[in-house]
């Protein structure tokens, strides 16, 4: 099978840029969220629709990013 309909977009969560990518694989949609810079993956999910897969990774990303402590410099 092939990866189809790959797409990528950037959103902001709690002031952090987040990259959301998703693609179709067979009858499922897969999504991944990463933290742009440096680009480490925050979450991945699989669902029946692109919207649901992206929602799941964004929810998880929000949870993880909210724990990142910012120091004053």
């Amino acid at each position, binding site marked *: 099978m092939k990866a189809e309909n790959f797409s990528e977009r950037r959103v902001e969560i709690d002031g952090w840029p987040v990259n959301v990518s998703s693609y179709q694989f067979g009858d499922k949609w897969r999504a991944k969220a990463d933290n742009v810079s*440096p680009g480490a*993956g925050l979450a991945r999910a699989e669902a029946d629709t692109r919207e649901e897969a992206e929602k799941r990774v964004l929810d998880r990303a929000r949870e993880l990013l909210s724990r990142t402590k910012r120091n004053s*410099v």
Partner: protein
Amino acid sequence: MGNYAHPEVLVNTDWVAGHASDPNVRVVEIDVDTKAYDEGHVPGAIAWAWNTQLCDTVVRDILPKSQFESLMTQSGVNNDSALVLYGDNNNWFAAWALWQAKIYGHKDVRIMNGGRKKWLEEGRDLETAPRTATPASRPYKATDADLSLRAFLPQVQQAQKAGKTVLIDVRSPQEFSGEILAPPGLPETCQRGGHIPGAHSVPWGKACNEDGTFKSIEDLQKLYGAEGVSQSTPVIPYCRIGERSSHTWFVLKYLMGLPNVQNYDGSWTEWGNLVGAPVEKGAAKSAGQA
């Protein structure tokens, strides 16, 4: 592969699609997210886990020579095989694996330009069943470690004091400044935030295009040249644990052809935890001022 100093270290996705089943080629996926391979991979590719197969799991270190040899033999890699590496995050840990393969003298090791993302973006075939390699018929023989490719703490401390080496901090601007201790969403693993005094901030991703491929040689020379990097300058890149900096090390060493580049894999999780180590905080100065 556009005017790079060593174009032989890069292959594109078309080349991989055409050679993945070549018996003299071993394609390996190495991801930050070690579950990515299971979702689908280049047909014929095997996987290496960076956190268990590409490091010493007891002592903080790269693979010992004997374990590297064992990994290669078990992976069906002969001394004359073409080893093609790719992965997520624009090849972070593929570069980490390449760096170790070069330390142990593997001659023909290449990166798939654009990595996993480009393969997906191009809508190429994915295989979901994991592949197990048939071990090589002869035991793999590595060379002794070439430590000219690696910087250890005493060298970095000396370089920082002497000021003749360009230290490149490839982490995000927020890590460089000390605003955060680790990338957003990841565990924090250092006691102090900031950067090695005098280091230049060039986040690793600046070497890549949007599609994950490497920028042109002209763009790379402009990017690093603005930070004082030249053919005659010793350069030490570092990050948090050494994988992002191996990506930049690869760019400087093989795409730009710099003769003296050492990856400091101890990186910020070593420096930022040292008692008494000097630390500088604050955003990067503009190019040429750091």
